[in-house]
């Protein structure tokens, strides 16, 4: 440990609970200025990791450094420079966004100028009680509270939950701007589109362990895509079955369907020997991406 330009470094970070889950032996490095996605199914350990980094829960063993500072000893200084959006943002039903913002501004010793700017951008109503807002509108307030003080590190747990598509676009643009000004963004997500568009790298957690850290194109390359091909002629099944990365080959009405991961070139060449009347390649879902890792062994981590 001790890489000075790392925004987040963890070394065998573990948080064990009597009933299981938590995180185990998590070692990773997120360089400054990177947008890092943290992916995994529910209960995999994403929120536990975030809370441990922020010293909201204390690790059983191991250590973490944020912005070069020890997550436990220097927690106050870290929190001065970090913005956090919890997974299920709330602040009390009767509290207005404005009142929450005023409190956070005083705690951070800063003004609310940028918050007003962000509120206009996200079309967020800060004057209404949070209990009267939809989940998406509450989430906007949470995003504003996380980002208004221009933190060096933004930690966002499922940031786009409930946001409509237009606001998701605005959020992605904001993350890009944060990266451009040199901030690091660490976000957990279930949205593959979002991860693909904004993340430089991703880490995948499974059963409390980090099983891989990958660049986004590599992540998608390992995902198994479903392909359905309509053929004017019959045949081709055996040929496809022999190809590396191809699985679940099935005859369907008027063609063939299969899954593949990896290099697409041999597949295209094999299909080129036939008269293809239709071709459908579905985008992998995040679950399919996870399956690619869970079945394919572990990567870095």
């Amino acid at each position: 440990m001790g890489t000075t330009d790392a925004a987040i470094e963890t070394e065998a970070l573990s948080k064990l609970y009597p009933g299981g889950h938590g995180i185990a032996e998590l070692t990773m490095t997120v360089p400054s200025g990177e947008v890092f996605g943290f992916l995994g199914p529910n209960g995999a350990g994403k929120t536990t990791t975030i809370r441990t980094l922020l010293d909201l829960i204390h690790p059983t063993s191991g250590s973490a450094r944020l912005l070069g500072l020890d997550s436990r000893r220097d927690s106050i200084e870290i929190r001065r420079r970090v913005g956090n959006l919890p997974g299920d943002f709330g602040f009390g039903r009767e509290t207005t966004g404005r009142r929450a913002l005023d409190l956070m501004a005083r705690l951070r010793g800063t003004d609310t100028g940028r918050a007003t700017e962000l509120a206009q951008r996200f079309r967020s109503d800060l004057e209404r009680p949070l209990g009267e807002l939809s989940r998406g509108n509450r989430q906007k307030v949470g995003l504003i509270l996380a980002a208004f003080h221009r933190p060096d590190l933004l930690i966002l747990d499922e940031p786009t939950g409930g946001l409509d598509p237009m606001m998701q676009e605005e959020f992605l643009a904001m993350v890009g701007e944060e990266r451009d000004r040199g901030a690091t963004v660490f976000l957990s997500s279930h949205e593959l589109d979002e991860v693909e568009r904004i993340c430089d790298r991703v880490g995948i957690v499974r059963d409390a362990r980090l099983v891989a850290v990958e660049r986004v194109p590599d992540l998608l390359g390992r995902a198994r895509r479903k392909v359905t091909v309509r053929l004017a002629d019959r045949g081709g099944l055996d040929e496809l079955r022999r190809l590396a990365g191809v699985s679940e080959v099935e005859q369907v009405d008027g063609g063939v369907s299969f899954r593949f991961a990896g290099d697409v070139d041999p597949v295209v060449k094999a299909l080129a020997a036939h008269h293809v009347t239709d071709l459908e390649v579905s985008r992998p879902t995040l679950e399919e991406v996870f399956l690619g890792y869970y079945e394919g062994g572990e990567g870095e981590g």
Partner: protein
Amino acid sequence: MNDRLAAVVGFHLQERRRSPLAWGLPLGAMSAFIVAIYPSVQSALTKVVAQYPEGLKQAFGIGELANVEQYLHGEMLSLIVPLAVGYLAARAVASDLSGAAESGRLEVVLSAPVTRTAVCLAAFLAAAVEVAAVLLLTLVLSLLGSLVAGAGLGVGDALAGFAMVWPLALVGAGLAIVVCGFSLKTSVVTGVVAGFLVAMYVVDLIGKLDDSLSGVRYASIFKYYGNAIESGIDPVAFLGLTAFSLLLGWIGAMLFERSDLNV
């Protein structure tokens, strides 16, 4: 007070700005009613109370009911007000710690550069102010009731009686912080403190009912709470209860610092 602490205390008080009215009005109205009816029931009461067993009178602090102060103590200040306001103090702390954890606010607040000890202290201070406001309103309404009915409630006596509730209620606040160090469930926090206050009252009651068990009263905060409306404030008891509540708050803050914020 540093600015962050003042910010959190101010936020809590603003969030619960209606609480003094919600608690002080009913308690004050009840006290005012008790005080106001005293002149008309005094003679009947004296006869009835004279027939009560001595132990019962001592246990419930009924005394001779020879004046309105004794009547107010017996009806309100011996049990109802300290239990209600002690519970209020615990509820206020629970709202600011366990309730805030349940609503998600605590996670956001603790993402800012503020210590958990400061958050606990802010909860304690806000509870202290809230309890003082409720007691003040109850006192004022009681005095108004006396004025209207000509009951002759002494201002100094009444002030002493209600003021002595304050440190007792703070013990409830301090204990609530201790419980928050173990559990961030509001129902657990308020339940434990309510149970503690009732248990303290019962221990004191047992000591009053049975002379051979009078020693157990020293283990009850109600022993030190006493009967200030008649005997005045015992400064040692007042400061002792306040110090005990602060000690509980400090222990609670230490536990809270070490606990995990998992709801």
